């Protein structure tokens, strides 16, 4: 068999993550994160919660919240549903890793390449994001997350540090449009 090793490309089609800088803000393509959805199955809530605590080392966060510990970050995405972030390098095949821990208490689906993520860092985050989405950013605490719409695209916005660091996840296929919206807004606002 010929050697046909597959070279990955980023959501923007590049070989390396793109980074755009503005006064007070950088927008970076997030490519080093593996993602999976974790949904609790019915009938075993206590076992599920206990498994989660044992596996992650922290309780799964409640509505609108994000919890982090070790290599994992859990983001609440709906009732009994979370997105789990982990380093891509160690967790590329994330679903079986979680499945091993959760067994039949949860349904787990790989989401890594379903999303194109961008990190916004710097003091210009809020003035940029306020011309993009209708969330009350001033009241968004660190380690909180919300679904929102940016330029017609359904997104998840995560506040890592109030006013300083946010992650936007949008559908990977429309990452170029989302990126265009982010940089246009940054240019406009900063």
């Amino acid at each position, binding site marked *: 068999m*010929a050697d*046909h090793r597959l070279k990955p*490309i980023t959501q923007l*089609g590049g070989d390396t993550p793109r980074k755009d800088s503005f006064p007070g803000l950088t927008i970076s393509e997030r*490519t080093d994160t593996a993602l999976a959805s974790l949904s609790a199955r019915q009938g075993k809530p206590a076992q599920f919660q206990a498994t989660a605590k044992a596996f992650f080392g922290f309780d799964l966060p409640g509505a609108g919240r994000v919890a982090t510990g070790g290599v994992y970050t859990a983001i609440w995405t709906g009732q009994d549903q979370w997105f789990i972030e982990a380093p891509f390098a160690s967790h590329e095949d994330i679903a079986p890793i979680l499945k091993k821990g959760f067994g*039949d208490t949860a349904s787990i689906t790989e989401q890594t*390449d379903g999303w194109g993520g961008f990190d916004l860092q710097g003091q210009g985050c809020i003035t940029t994001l306020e011309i993009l989405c209708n969330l009350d*950013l001033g009241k968004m605490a660190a380690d909180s997350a919300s679904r929102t719409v940016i330029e017609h695209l359904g997104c998840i916005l995560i506040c890592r540090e109030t006013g300083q660091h946010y992650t936007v996840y949008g559908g990977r296929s429309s990452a*170029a*449009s989302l990126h265009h919206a982010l940089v246009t807004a940054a240019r406009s606002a900063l």
Partner: protein
Amino acid sequence: MSQKNRLSGGLLNRAKPLNFTFDGASYQGYEGDTLASALLANGVRLMGRSFKYHRPRGPISSGSEEPNAIVELRTGARQEPNTRATIAELFEGLSAKSQNHVGSLKFDFLAINDRLSSFFAAGFYYKTFMWPKAFWEKLYEPMIRRAAGLGSLSMQDDPDHYDKGFLHCDLLVIGAGPAGLAAALTAGRSGARVILADEDFTPGGRLNAETFTLGDASGADWARAAIAELTSLPNVRILTRTVVIGAFDHGIYGALERVSDHIATPASGKPRQILWRIYSQRAVLAAGATERPIAFKNNDRPGVMLAGAMRAYANRWAATPGQTVAVFTNNDDGLRTASDLLAKGVKVAAVIDSRADGPAFTGAEHLRGAVVTDAKGRLGLSSIKVKLASGETRQIATEALGVSGGWNPNVHLTCHQRGLPVWNAELAAFVPGTLPVGMVVAGAANGQLSTAGALASGAAAAGQALEGLGLTVKSADLPQAEDAPIRVTPLWYVPHKGRAWLDQQNDVTVKDVKLAHQEGFRSVEHLKRYTTMGMATDQGKTSNISGLAVMAEMTGKSIPETGTTIYRPPYTPVPIAAFAGRSAGADFRPKRLTPSHKWAAEQGAVFVEVGMWMRAQWLPKAGETHWRQSVDREVLATRGSVGICDVTTLGKIDVQGPDAAEFLNRIYCNPFGKLPVGKVRYGLMLREDGMAMDDGTTARLAEDHFVTTTTTANAVGVYRHMEFCRQCLWPDLDVQIISTTEAWAQFSVAGPNARNLLQKIVDPEHDISNEAFPYMGCGEITVCGGFRARLFRISFSGELAYEIAVPTRYGDGLVRAMMEAGREFNAVVYGTEALGVMRIEKGHAAGNELNGTTSALNLGMGGMVNKKKDSIGSTLSEREGMNQAEALNLVGFQPVDPSKSLLGGMHFINQGAEANARNDQGYMTSVAFSPSLGHSIGLGYLKNGAARKGETLRAVNPLAGEEVMVKVVSAHFVDPEGERLRG
């Protein structure tokens, strides 16, 4: 020209002179000027022509209520018609033009309309130009529209961009006059999150236009200090040049910020304007009041203006409309204009006070109990005619006349949710009535017209709003301020035979209102529409109340009984560009790119929009000049060897849980319970009404794990439907679903060499021989030396075919690897056109057939609706009307003459029958030229079609008069027995 009417003082930066042009002539003004104030300072009173009669007009106001001084700003692509000179901030190099005239502003040929005014009374277009009837649309209407133009468009694309944004606050304060500033200070000091929005570029409202003091400071200085304090508070955001345009549900307000209108060209990347959506917990409306004119004959002469505006021009902008002025008032406030102008050294020829018993005024001749009955000076006021209390008349020479008929609170935003204002007899004005939830009104907008009243009510309103939010209020430290009582004796118009203007922008006179009444229009809403009063871009801010006062007089009713028309957003005009925001041109909507997009673009693919997806439609090779050449080649190469197509756009839904199979059993009309692990099954999904909804394949990866695919178009709709079923219909089922459409790059590999190609890609430990991996098999495999992948043996083209999926980031690499591996087989990548041709050749239904009006029976899949189980739509698919012998069946068609082509949408008519709806036998849904067969083919629905194979019919297109004889054939043009896909 020198600034001959420039006064001393004012809030101008005289160290920064600004050069500008108006109608080609050069002038100079100062930073802080508006276009109107600078023109007045330069002795220019004539700034435009009226809408209907083309009467010469000058500004009557100093704010956004302006009906007359409407101009075109800038040149080239940035030219903007219908802007108000009274709020256009002067900048270096500003180029402005007057509008709505043929010839020059001074000699407008269309001023003939004024001579013919008797033909143009209210509703003239309903009465004249009626004959001949055909001329109305082609001749009269275009002619009238041209004559009544409102400026011209550049016809070039707007080079600027516009943003939309979202803000949140505890308290939105609308207006930064004394009431708004007091409210913002109260709330800001109390720690609330405050947004203070003001349409002006210098906050302060009337404080900048008046001479009285607040404490020890001038009004302007106090306002400046208040703004400085508010700016220092981190919880307060001040939006200047921002007009709040509407009050919407749930405390949401719209606001337009004119970010770059005051500079020649927006800075690179910066928006011209931002349309904000403000989410407020509470709002204080401190929008002030608008002065109203008194109508008299020829009251539209350039130089006749509102008294408060004349005062504002003198005090704030150090400009006077004339060296000699006069004042006509029915209230005490008008007298202030005379004293302020006198203090500025302007000669006041007379003060005409309609009240015989008003307070005495010294400093100029005070004609009490007198009224102005006429004005002279076509291009600019030269004199007024005054009827004295004694009944005598006097002609008084003056270049300008300040008119005050009292003040109308700006209640507009209080009415945006159908609240009606209430009449206040003391003010002779409407004040706010029922308010939108969360709104409190303060200051002049609420009828508190004194400065002290405005300050106190602003602070109180903020206090009330904050207490409602449970916040502790720190009392504001308010300065001493004037607290003069309101003394007004209503006077709406001075009766006379001539024309006295009410709505100057739409040229509506007192006579027009009387005529409307005479012709039976009694309701103010009818009056408005018949006369067009208040329907211009100023929305009648200076005319509506006076108009309905005249109407009230006609009907013998009181003003409150007559009522007002409805106030609607936006408060002032908003450019459509601002509503569009960034969604313009190529950015109108986002695009979705497939994993192989980069590769396809490199190959020169022609892309087509499929929803938001950009899919390769065909990939032309060198020498191909027509799309059919490319498509035919792709089809033949695939059927002859192997072709690859990016099918990532099909929806993929991961279905997991112990009840996943049961869930799918209920969603699909055919059963899934016994689908073995490692197998794929085609599924048909019905709507509740029994009609076909969507179709696709479902693969079972584990006992409790399925991957369902949907059509590209219905991916979102099907997911939403499944989520609804899961959450609302069967919450007891233990099933979890999530979309994985974008997580996997999926390619169809089809053709006799599909397996040979894939065997070079799939790692050798995975046996994909026909025996080990038969038709409708599926499995998780690895490719290219260990990369995770999924393989499904399914076929849309009818060929031996697979769909192979890898995590999306590897999709680009996979297509390159497959093309490399397929070189020996002359592999091609085919686009959506070839995909469509092949599925029509195979007789597979797609969106054209699953069009929302067809059932499983129509599709020839009636037998799939399993009656041993219940599923959505199964019962209603048994409805009698859907199961008649005459039901439409999906069949194939080919032209009797192979050289003829077919057209989608053609209807079938029996030979010899007339082509009409009664004889309709069905319709063509999909057509293609089949390169495999060498002629056109089609799919379509035909009544009892399954039993009519071999019949010849007429396919007609009555719209274009086309007709083709077609033969009814099997829908499966290629490999009807399905041997290839199982091979």
